[in-house]
């Protein structure tokens, strides 16, 4: 049965190859080929899943060794796949959500003449992501890691004729590179410490290594996770990545790729368990990011960027949970899966709204859309309820568990982390309600207003069918787009309950990640109650601000915090001032030192020798007899020296 793992990856890879190499001949059918192969991969995943379910919990690990990749002395890298419960979860999420989004893209990208290429990139992404989660060693994982980075770059910059998209792609690529550096250093450290980078030897021998080394490895892995999962301090790329087509935002920058960091941390759980300092760093990063993302999400008027802030925040929850150790691993992954459903659904809903609104993204120009796009409204609304943790829906189960786990960390840390998570829940409720109200409720602010196209030319091809200044005509999206949204909405509603009732997900994943119940100072019911209170407070504030009062079409100046949050809490400014300017100053001073000191020494030496040889060269007059005199004089000196030595 393990022989099915390779085809799982090969199917989308084949799709990418066919679509990207095939050329224009495949333009008519390219998107269906891509969707078909993605679905095929999903079917393989289902078959394997059924196979795993049929086995005992201890035997649910399949490995497939394809070939030895790099055999050099003690360095041996194999192309080996490992399918266990953790990988399986990811495989189903990636291929399942991926296939739905393929389907959605068929409609969304209908008017784009480069649709075939888009599907090629999507398939490439699926293949790389599957490689990432199925790899049996860190080096192969790194290949997938870089592969998804490449696919992300290609897809963010898919509309490369827009300078903003090209810049955003470059930014994502560069910021990711910082994280990738962390992963490569971590792999090197693993090799020097354990003599291998396969999961088996590394994760089962963490006891042999010193804590310092494990902490170093853990911090490097955390850096990698920060880059890929847009965690503070490497978070700046995610907001700009929304320049990509919306299905890309849904698949890559909400459901799957950005969670690769969480996967990496959970997969390397053994390393983190043995390095408490690294674990603490992980929780801090997670807590900071969940607040950071939530605050940013409150201030954005761009619907996709508000959702991007939300994504950052939710991944912050997952990282926080992953940093809690065995208490949180399972819940991190559970939240990851439910988040994959509802966030993908929200993004698809946002895409559907944009599709019907001439690609307008400013929520201040939405309003009252529930009448015009009922399916979008319902699915988006279910996703909204799920993310804020409305009782009974997915987010309720998964997020609640994380908050519980944070308190269960114990001590002051537990209170701080739990408090942050609770606060995050309140803010989540606020900003999601804000998005919901501004988009689907209130007055129809899009009437009698020209689109803002001249200032920010919308380049999505759909805009070309309408006039630049035409008033939008909101309409429901075609079935090919609404069906994936409905499926995802179903997942968002029932996923959490399905996983949680009877601790199904816990039992499924426990053999891989391990689990321990922390001892929480608060009872589960108290935590749930507190979460509910936060939720109500958040929703109420949002209602007070955006539901009762009309939403101004032009954003008010706002408080200092609001303005900072609109600028992504000054993250770009920080990067610019500290990293870019700092780097410029550093290089400038280095250049100065190089010019004056280093070159000065070198040039001075050269000039000195030049002057000296200019004088010495007069001895070289070309007359053999002059040279003979020097030789003879030298011989005389040698004789004199010999005599002198004898005399002494």
């Amino acid at each position, binding site marked *: 049965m393990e022989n099915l793992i390779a085809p799982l990856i090969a199917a989308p890879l084949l799709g990418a190859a066919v679509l990207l190499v095939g050329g224009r001949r495949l333009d008519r059918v390219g998107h269906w080929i891509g969707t078909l192969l993605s679905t095929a991969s999903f079917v393989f995943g289902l078959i394997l899943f059924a196979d795993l379910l049929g086995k005992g919990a201890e035997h649910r690990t399949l490995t497939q060794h394809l070939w030895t990749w790099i055999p050099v002395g003690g360095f041996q890298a194999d192309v080996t796949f490992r399918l266990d419960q953790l990988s399986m979860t990811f495989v189903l999420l990636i291929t399942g959500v991926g296939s739905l989004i393929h389907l959605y893209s068929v409609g969304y990208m209908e008017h784009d003449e480069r649709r075939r290429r888009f599907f090629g990139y999507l398939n490439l992404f699926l293949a790389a992501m599957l490689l990432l989660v199925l790899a049996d060693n860190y080096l192969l994982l790194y290949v997938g890691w870089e592969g998804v980075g490449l696919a992300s770059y290609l897809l963010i910059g898919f509309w490369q004729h827009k300078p903003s998209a090209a810049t955003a792609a470059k930014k994502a690529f560069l910021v990711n590179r910082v994280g990738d550096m962390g992963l490569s250093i971590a792999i090197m450290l693993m090799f020097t410490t354990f003599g291998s980078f396969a999961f088996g030897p590394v994760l089962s021998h963490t006891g042999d290594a010193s804590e310092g080394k494990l902490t170093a490895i853990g911090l490097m892995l955390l850096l990698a996770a920060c880059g890929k999962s847009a965690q503070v301090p490497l978070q700046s790329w995610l907001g700009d990545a929304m320049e990509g087509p919306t299905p890309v935002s849904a698949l890559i920058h909400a459901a799957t790729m950005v969670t690769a960091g969480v996967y990496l941390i959970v997969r390397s759980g053994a390393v983190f368990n043995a390095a408490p300092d690294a674990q603490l760093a992980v929780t801090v990063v997670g807590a900071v990011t969940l607040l950071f993302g939530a605050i940013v999400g409150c201030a954005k008027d761009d619907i996709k960027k508000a959702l991007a802030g939300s994504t950052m925040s939710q991944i912050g929850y997952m990282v926080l949970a992953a940093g809690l150790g065995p208490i949180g691993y399972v819940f991190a992954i559970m939240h990851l899966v439910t988040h994959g459903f509802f966030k993908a659904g929200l993004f698809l809903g946002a895409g559907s709204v944009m599709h019907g609104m001439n690609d307008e993204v400013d929520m201040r120009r939405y309003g009252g859309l529930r009448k015009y796009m009922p399916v979008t409204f319902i699915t988006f609304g279910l996703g909204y309820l799920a993310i804020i943790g409305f009782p009974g829906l997915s987010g309720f189960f998964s997020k609640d568990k994380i908050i519980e786990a944070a308190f269960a960390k114990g001590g002051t840390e537990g209170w701080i982390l739990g408090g942050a998570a609770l606060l995050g829940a309140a803010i989540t409720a606020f900003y999601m309600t804000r998005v919901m109200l501004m988009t689907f409720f209130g007055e129809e602010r899009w009437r009698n207003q020209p689109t803002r196209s001249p200032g920010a030319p919308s380049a999505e091809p759909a805009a070309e069918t309408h006039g630049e200044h035409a008033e939008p005509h909101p309409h429901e999206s075609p079935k090919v787009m609404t069906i994936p949204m409905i499926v995802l909405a179903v997942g968002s509603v029932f996923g959490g309950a399905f996983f949680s009732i009877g601790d199904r997900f816990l039992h499924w994943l426990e053999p891989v990640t391990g689990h321990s119940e922390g001892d929480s100072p608060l009872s589960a019911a108290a935590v749930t109650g507190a979460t509910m209170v936060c939720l109500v407070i958040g929703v109420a504030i949002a209602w007070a601000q955006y539901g009762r009062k009309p939403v101004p079409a032009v954003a008010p100046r706002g408080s200092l915090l609001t303005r900072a949050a609109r600028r992504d809490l000054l993250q770009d400014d920080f990067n610019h001032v500290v990293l870019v300017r700092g780097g410029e100053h550093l290089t400038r001073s280095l250049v100065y030192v190089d010019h004056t000191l280093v070159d000065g020494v070198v040039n001075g030496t050269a000039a000195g020798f030049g002057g000296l040889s200019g004088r010495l*060269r007069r001895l*070289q*007059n*070309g*007359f*053999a*007899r002059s040279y*003979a*005199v020097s030789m*003879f004089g030298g011989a005389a000196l040698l004789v004199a020296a010999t005599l002198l030595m004898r005399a002494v």
Partner: protein
Amino acid sequence: MNPVNYLYLAALLFTIGATGVLIRRNAIVLFMCVELMLNACNLAFVTFSRMHGNLDGQIIAFFTMVVAAAEVVVGLAIIVSLFRTRHSASVDDASLMKL
């Protein structure tokens, strides 16, 4: 008479030859001076041979002669070809290797 006098004579001839190399410009005369130096060395070798009572010094002198003969052959060939190209046997005319 002390046979060391032969050595003094050899030293004197050697010095005269060396000075000649330095002050004469005609390549042929210059070569003759070199031969004079070699001969002075040979005289010293022969004298040493006599002093030590073995023939090794004479052997060395013999080899010196052979090498000198080879050197003269090549040297004179160089002088001839130099004369052909520059129409002069002066060593100072061949002074192009300078700045």
